[in-house]
């Protein structure tokens, strides 16, 4: 599959802080790629490198096969971007914002732009400064989508927004997916959203990629197993392949890499039995990979 974004061994420091450490990532055409990570994990730094707002000082970044710093026009004209900062010019009116943005994109779809404006109920004569936070996000989304970009980049698009605006943003992503050949890269810490729309996911933790791959394959390679012990246990047993335990007393739930066969045998030795087994949610997987375990002390 053709790669739209190719990041190779990207390392970035801000003073003493290592924001990205040897990050390699490939986003294929047509993929909806979710970037998940805690606040300060490096998601925005990675996205800024993709947009050319940060120069790759170590490693390389290619978007559509081009260096976004050296060729900003060729790269940015094919990207729709919604910033986390919602930094639209406050003095512009909505219609001025649309007219101004249209000038930069030959493929601007007027009908689609008007349709989006009406869907979002944005008054063209209202100044951006008078829009609510949600409306600002909708206005930003409008100008990011109306030129039908080949790559849609959304940085924490629904951060701090109400469920209705979040639904609009998810709807926009889904519409973009429906358009053939369009690619979406979006970062979020709302994992349910990512799980809902992404077909690929990359988990970033402290500047490193903790896990990356197709969503289904990732979820299929882990199991969420609930174990009940005969006696209450202050700590869960230490079993190979278990990423983390959660629970207490007699009932504990483990996220296990691979199948749960080894865990079955191990818990039987400790007087327990598996009472339930299911595929983990993305949130459970994320916490298992990058979260602090509920009880790090393990019984040997």
């Amino acid at each position, binding site marked *: 599959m053709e790669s739209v974004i190719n990041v190779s061994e990207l390392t970035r420091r801000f003073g003493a802080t290592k924001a990205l450490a040897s990050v390699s990532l490939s986003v294929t055409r047509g993929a909806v790629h979710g970037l998940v990570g805690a606040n300060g994990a490096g998601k925005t730094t990675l996205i800024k490198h993709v*947009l*050319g*707002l*940060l*120069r790759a000082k170590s490693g390389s970044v290619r978007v559509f096969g081009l260096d976004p*710093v*050296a060729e*900003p*026009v060729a*790269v*940015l*004209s094919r*990207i729709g*971007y919604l*910033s986390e*900062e919602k*930094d*639209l*010019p*406050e*003095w*512009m*009116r909505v*219609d*001025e914002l649309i*007219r*101004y943005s*249209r*000038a*930069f*994109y030959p493929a601007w779809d007027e009908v689609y732009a008007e349709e989006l404006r009406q869907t979002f109920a944005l008054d063209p*004569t209202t100044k951006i400064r008078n829009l609510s936070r949600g409306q600002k996000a909708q206005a930003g989304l409008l100008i990011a989508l109306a030129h039908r970009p080949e790559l849609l980049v959304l940085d924490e698009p629904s951060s701090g927004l109400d469920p209705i605006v979040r639904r609009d943003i998810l709807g926009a992503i889904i519409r973009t997916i429906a358009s053939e050949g369009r690619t979406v890269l979006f970062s979020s810490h709302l994992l349910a959203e990512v799980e809902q729309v992404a077909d690929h996911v990359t988990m970033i933790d402290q500047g490193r990629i903790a896990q990356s791959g197709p969503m289904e394959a990732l979820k299929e390679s882990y199991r969420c197993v609930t174990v009940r012990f005969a006696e209450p246990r202050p700590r869960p047993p230490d079993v190979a392949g278990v990423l983390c335990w959660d629970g207490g007393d007699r009932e504990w739930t483990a996220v296990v890499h691979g199948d749960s066969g080894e865990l079955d045998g191990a818990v039987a030795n400790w007087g327990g039995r598996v009472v339930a087994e299911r595929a983990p949610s993305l949130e459970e997987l994320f916490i298992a990979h990058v979260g602090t375990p509920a009880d790090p002390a393990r019984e040997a």
Partner: protein
Amino acid sequence: MRSHAAAVAWEFRQRHRWGLIAVACYLLALATFKLLSLERGQPITFDDEQTFAFAVIVPSATAFMYFLAVFSFGFAGDLAGRQSIYPARMFTLPATSGALAGWPMLYGTVAVAILWLATRFLAAWPSDLDVPLIWPALLAAVFLAWTQALTWMPYALPGLRVIVTVLMMILIDIVIFTAHDSKASEVVMLAILAPNIPLAYLVARFAVARARRGDVPDRRRIFARIGRIADLLSRRRDRFRSPASAQAWFERRRHGRSLPALVGILLPFELFLLFLFRDTPVLVFETLCAVLLTPPFMAVFVAATVSKPNLNGSDSYGVTPFIATRPLTSVSLVTAKLKVTIWSTLATWLLVIVTIPLALRIFGTSPMVIEWTQKLVEAVGTPRAVVIVLLGFSALMASTWKQLVQSLCIGMSGRAWLVKGSVFLALSLLTIMVLLAQWVFENSGVIVTLLDAFPWILAVLVCFKISAAAWVAMRLHDSRLLSDRTLVIGALCWNVAVFALFGLLVWLLPTVLFRSHFLALVAILAIPLARLSAAPLALSWNRHR
């Protein structure tokens, strides 16, 4: 932090430490100067008005204005907005509104009072001046307290804050000047000023309490109709021809009106002086000179906003993601700014050129100017007179534009340390130059040496300029920001401009007085090159960090 008072003090100290250190350094320099002069046994006093102004009045007035901005939270707030400029984040602190208003007021008033007392004791004042001790300190405190109270108040209309505050300052000024002119004693002055502090505190407490409960009156509907008409006039309905024209429109809306508006506000007041001085030719001449120098002078201040890539936050110098992700090259973004500065310069000068003859005619001073023109024609001949006038106007226009663009490369770099460092360096250099010039003019031997060495000084400056330009050209080439063809065309245009100016100077000025190589050096230094061509590099450095 042990208490709310300590936390507020810590915030002021931590946030403005460099500014406060600079003020402390200035006071230390004053003290050192005075100590040295006392040690010599011959007290040195600034009997010369200009030197005293540069050494004492300007720095201490700047420090006072800085304190006004710091302690009223003016750096962080929107002065033109309706909401209080008191930081909203502090409203949720577990402190009374009295404490929220009181502590910054106490720290501010004490700081400005100390500033005055330090200046009073440390500066070498002119020997014939009887400098009062207490009441100016209290006056400074009153100014600050009222500034705080009135800027923290929520207002019904945008911009009302500035008007109310300025009017209050004028009112205090009038009362104090009247009392001073009436030879009021220090006790009377104190009696006039002292009640203002508690009064200002009560107003400030009310303002903070009102802002804290979100009580912001709104009377904007009164002006809604006018606003709609203005919006209709400025509305563009047609498509932009290109991304470059869209960006030029963006820059014009953001920065283009500032200089014409500022000059437009000042001009009526300046030109009215022609009426007041209509019987004194020297003052009419000086007024006209002041009017003509207004655009380049105001351009210095407007340049700070033109070069700033991000106007959303006062502390932010970086390009916003919205602008940084425009599918335009950094050169195109800078070009849009340059186009707007040209538009802004032309609009400003159109305003000046139209209003001056009107004012001369209305106030009956045009015969005076016609007479001067005739004298000029008689002295140098008609062609030279026409060229001198045209060249004068062109030089003023070019100077206005140059002021607008010459700091672009600093402002667009997006590095706070570079911007603040350059301001500090410029002010330091200015101070040194003024003191140096003072010293030079007092020593005739130095003047002769300096005049002999002047061409060499210019030659060194030209070497610096050409070296810097060569470095910038190489960087532009290496970073592929500009093509080879564009670089060559740019260099050719610059050469043509230099030769044209050189030819004009040779034709205009007597070569007996000004050698041709000297005029060539002047022409090279006059046409902008290095800093202007560094602007795309600076923006690229900012945009792709």
